[in-house]
């Protein structure tokens, strides 16, 4: 499935950017252009699966539509622990 391999590529790319913070990632934003050749609903389905597999801990895929052919990993959201150190 095309979108499954794309979802795995997104996971690899985001994991490389996040490093040790990957387990704290709560959302992954992906821009999908109308002419990108990617089916958004299939990609979202596959991304949910990838992002729930370790080292991911269930980050939410957020697909952002665009009118051109862009296909970008646009942002990631990470939950920071604000509690003061003991």
């Amino acid at each position, binding site marked *: *499935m*095309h979108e*499954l*391999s*794309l979802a795995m*590529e*997104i996971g*690899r*790319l*985001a994991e490389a*950017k*996040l490093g040790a913070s990957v387990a704290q990632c*709560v*959302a992954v934003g*992906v821009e999908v252009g109308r002419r990108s*050749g990617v089916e958004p609903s299939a990609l979202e389905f596959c991304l949910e699966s990838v992002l729930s597999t370790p080292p991911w801990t269930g980050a939410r895929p957020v697909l952002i539509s665009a009118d051109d052919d862009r*296909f*970008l*990993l*646009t*942002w*990631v*959201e*990470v*939950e*920071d*622990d*604000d509690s003061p150190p003991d």
Partner: protein
Amino acid sequence: MTVRRIELHERIMARNNELAAAVRARLATHGVTAINLMSSPGSGKTTLLERTLAELGEALDIAVVTGDCQTQNDADRLAAHTRRLVQAIVTGGICHLDALQVSDALDHLDLAQTRLLIIENVGNLICPSAWDLGEQTRVLLFSVTEGEDKPVKYPRMFESANWVVFTKTDLLPYVPFDTERAVQHCLRVNPAVRFLFVSAMTDGGLDEWFSFIRREVAPVAPV
């Protein structure tokens, strides 16, 4: 807990494209031309390659990498027509080849003894168009047993092709395929595309195909 957004704006295909550029550079170093042969399943890629290897495999030092979702049947068929190495990639269900797989396959080929690499992609009219493999030329087979409107149904594949090769032309008297209409559909999505017409069963158009293959191979540099 607070949520912090990290802006990235990374092209998702960037990693594959970097690997493809490395494959292209590696092939160039050895003077090897690469053709990415694509089509829907059953359009005759392997049969045309069998004929090509039998006719030109030795003379042009052709090496082949085949991609299949499952089995290495195509590689086994092709190996029967050449003493040259045929490298199989079984994708395990993935619907296209990527540059990393081709890069790994190159490790098993003797590039110093190769002038033309033909990559037989996984049969699929959607996904392979998005994945640069490091090739110089994209050849798309279009069987006359398919619908003439394939180019407008799958425009990205036809947009990305340098050549469209109509296959199984011996069946034209028996199938309702309007060649002129199919050509017009191709040109509508890709005005620069060029055409060949072949039948690997009756040899129709194979001389033109073989001439095309010879032209693709870079001349051997004088020693």
